[in-house]
């Protein structure tokens, strides 16, 4: 599918970042006409199939943003199409609206087993169809790449947000956060205790950023113990200092009393040797975009990775600010004293 700037702009008017592609499976020509008339094609591009079988290969090759399936297809039950899509992990996230008759709605069906995301019941009224379609798309975009543990936006949303800010030439500080010694903690205490720490870290980041008054911010979860957040450049250092202090305060609560008392844990390292590891710490690498200094997302992540190495040299929680114009990265201890 091609998109030019014009179509993007008009899709954006609806809150979409690009033209939405809808596949409609229905023998009902009137419904197809209704769907095609609701939005300009630059906003919603509706591909209509009158039968089910023909559509499946297209669906699998080039999944749309939304699938609308009529229960009354002539060649196969509509729900079979739905279960075909929903039983494959790669297509599961594709939202499906199922169209049924009033009688079918009254007679009741097993809604929990059907794996559909929403339904429309005949008679189809334009206002309702419009609302259902928009809501279903909005819902899908909210949940599509959220981290399953923390529910924070995932990689696609993160990259998208960063590139958007770069394209708009907005000043920002992008902070990469990760935990030191998380692996040894996981090895010793198990994954579910590790997940507790990730949930805590997410919450600490979100609330620390939110406690900075009156700023626009973004928090995402790359995966595992990697998080990112975006704040205005002028508050980045303050945010890092607060984050380091709060994290260091809270993390001992996640250890067993003996380890907490001792201030370290015994765990096996990558070579299988029993080793002593300090309590977990948070490392922060801060990349600035000022006056459009960054051109691409990849640039930001590359700089961040080299800063992260620097931050990791310090076994304690700390942050490193990108000082590209001023020479080498500035290494800053987390807490005074």
């Amino acid at each position, binding site marked *: 599918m091609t998109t030019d700037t014009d179509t993007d702009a008009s899709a954006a008017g609806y809150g979409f970042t690009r033209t939405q592609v809808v596949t409609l499976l229905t023998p009902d020509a009137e419904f197809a006409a209704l769907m095609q008339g609701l939005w300009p094609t630059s906003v919603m591009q509706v591909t209509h199939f009158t039968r089910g079988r023909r559509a499946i290969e297209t669906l699998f090759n080039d999944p749309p943003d939304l699938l609308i399936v009529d229960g009354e297809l002539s060649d196969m039950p509509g729900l079979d199409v739905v279960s075909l899509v929903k039983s494959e992990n790669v297509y599961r996230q594709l939202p499906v609206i199922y169209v049924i008759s009033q009688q079918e709605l009254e007679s009741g069906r097993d809604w929990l087993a059907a794996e559909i995301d929403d339904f429309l019941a005949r008679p189809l009224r334009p206002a309702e169809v419009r609302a259902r379609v928009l809501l279903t798309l909005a819902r899908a975009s909210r949940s599509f790449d959220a981290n399953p543990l923390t529910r924070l936006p995932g990689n696609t949303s993160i990259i998208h947000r960063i590139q958007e800010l770069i394209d708009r030439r907005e000043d920002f500080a992008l902070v990469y956060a990760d935990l030191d010694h998380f692996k040894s903690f996981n090895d010793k205490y198990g994954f579910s205790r590790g997940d*507790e720490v990730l949930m*805590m870290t997410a919450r600490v980041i*979100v*609330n620390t950023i939110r406690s900075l008054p009156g700023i626009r911010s973004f928090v995402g979860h790359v995966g595992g113990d990697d998080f990112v957040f975006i704040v205005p450049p002028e508050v980045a250092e303050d945010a890092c200092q607060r984050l380091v202090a*709060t994290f260091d305060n809270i993390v001992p609560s996640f250890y067993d009393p003996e380890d907490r008392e001792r201030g370290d844990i015994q765990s096996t390292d990558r070579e299988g040797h029993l080793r002593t590891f300090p309590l977990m710490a948070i490392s922060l690498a801060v990349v600035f975009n000022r006056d459009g200094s960054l051109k691409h997302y990849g640039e930001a992540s590359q700089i961040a990775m080299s800063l992260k190495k620097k931050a990791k040299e310090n076994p304690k929680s700390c942050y490193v600010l990108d000082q590209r114009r001023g020479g080498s990265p500035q290494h800053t201890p987390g807490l005074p004293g």
Partner: protein
Amino acid sequence: MAEDLRTERKGLILAVKDLPTLPKVLDEVARLVERSDSSTDEVAKLIAMDQVLSAKVLKMVNSPIYGFPGRISSIQHALVLLGFNVLRGIIVSTSVFEIMSENMVGLWEHSLGVALASSTVARAAGLRDPEEYSVAGLLHDLGKVVATVQLPELKGEIEQAVRTRDLTYIEAEKEVLGFGHDRINAWLADHWKLPPNIKEGLSYHHKPHLAQLYPDMACAVHIGDFMARVFEYGFGGDDNAPYLRPEALKRLKLKPADVEGILDHLGEQFLEISDLSFA
């Protein structure tokens, strides 16, 4: 007592939905969280004076939805993890006692006194994280509050037994309810997934010598309870002479000189908060 009556009462107690508090701290916290420049520390300090607000905050942060049940025993940490939005939600949904009895006000003061005394004891004994001892001290009589809210008709009976028959509050509870507030505390702590050290302080402060997992916590709260009664700060529910188990002092390796030091320190602290009132 019949097992089914006990089960029924336990069920009623754990079903507590609306735990009211006294209006004064609630109003102050509400004012503070509406201001954009309030710090978490300020708010935490205030909440740490009110046993019901503290219990609500810890219950919420330790609930499974946040993903780390039983881990957080500090009010300050709880507030950071919950955030001001959630805290505002707790504040607006908290009601106040319709009738504020003198005994209730006394119990709030007593709880604050025990919080102060328990952390002072913990510091004197060289224990780590004395604030956690303060939290356990603050919540040590929470079972009394919950029983009052959930079984109001029996509350009168307990108070009458204390008045007319020279029983301690916990003896009267055992007679009227069939169990004491220490047992209620243990149920609540389990049900709300409070951290195990806090639970131990809440459920063993009357019998610290039997505490298995965190005896230091039980002993510190036991001694704290005793001290607050010695100073007659607040009202713990009865006027009987307070008792002190020597095992608790022994366990924390507190010598008479240490106890004197604690008493001196507490004397000053209680004087400092003497104008503070919940009424």
